[in-house]
């Protein structure tokens, strides 16, 4: 099952995706974060803004993902995790984070990123190391936004980050609930 997703992801990356220069991408993201830090001067607030931006990206990104990957609905949350890591991340960032720490009820999982294209060449200022600052927090927003558009309400947050001196970069994704389609009264 996992192999099948990997093949889908590889194939889309090879053929159906337009590519840009990685340095340009890293620099663009870096300047966004730097500007936010300058404007807000509070790392907690910057985290929130990055997550919000990610959310807006995610709600749009999912349409592109579905249009290009042509995949059907996932049967359970585990499948969703595999889909995100092998097809989603592959398609957009050309990385395949590992899916780990799946909870017993299958409603939580972690993504461990071996490499992070957003944070290449980045070193956090000392002040950021003291406070809880997640440089790549936009990714959490993207996950939340895109999953919400496919009827899943999730909570996604960084657990550790190599930029902060931790061993690994880990994002935790928790399923809060499935969103059922509801029709307001009087629609009929």
């Amino acid at each position: 099952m996992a192999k099948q997703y990997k093949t889908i992801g590889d194939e889309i990356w090879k053929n159906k995706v337009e590519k840009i220069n990685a340095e340009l991408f890293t620099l663009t993201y870096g300047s966004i974060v730097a500007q936010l830090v300058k404007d807000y001067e509070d790392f907690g607030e910057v985290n929130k803004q990055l997550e919000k931006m990610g959310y807006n990206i995610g709600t749009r990104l999912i349409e592109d993902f579905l249009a290009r990957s042509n995949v059907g609905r996932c049967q359970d949350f585990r499948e969703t995790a595999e889909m995100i890591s092998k097809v989603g991340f592959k398609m957009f960032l050309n990385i395949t984070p590992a899916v780990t720490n799946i909870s017993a009820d299958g409603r939580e999982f972690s993504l461990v990123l071996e490499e992070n294209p957003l944070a290449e060449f980045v070193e956090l200022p000392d002040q950021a190391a003291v406070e809880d600052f997640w440089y790549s927090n936009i990714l959490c927003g993207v996950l939340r936004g895109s999953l919400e558009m496919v009827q899943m309400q999730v909570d996604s947050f960084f657990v550790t980050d190599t930029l902060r001196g931790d061993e690994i970069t880990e994002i935790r994704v928790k399923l809060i609930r499935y969103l059922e389609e509801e029709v307001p009264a009087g629609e009929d």
Partner: protein
Amino acid sequence: VHAITSKISPVPGSSGIEMLETDTFRIHCFQTLTGTKFLLVADPQQPSIDHTMKKIYEVYSDYCVKNPFQNPEMPIRSEQFDVHLLKLVKSVGGLVQTYGSNNVYSNLINNSNLTSGGISNSGSSTPSQTSVPPTLPNIASSGLELGV
């Protein structure tokens, strides 16, 4: 429409209308996993509708979704979208009926099942109020007619 049709469906667990067929035309409904619905009016003989629908979805996701100034709930006003859609329709060998003005009338029936722009605590959906498309004139013309 979807709510009504999924209730009257003879098969349980239906996801709503997929196709409506009459003597002179067929209406196809393509629903994405995000709740966006595309309605396509076509000639009954028109082949490879599924493939065409997927291509339309791709054009939509390129020129509407990726435009940061295009609000998902609002009617689509994108020249690029119109241009590429026309190209696609022509390539499938269809004719495009224009209504009134020179522009193709675009009113994509967009029915997302979540409130856009943030999580609403009540969890209820607000389908956008879209006007009914004008009565299609002379549908008997052969080929693909895009009544989006």
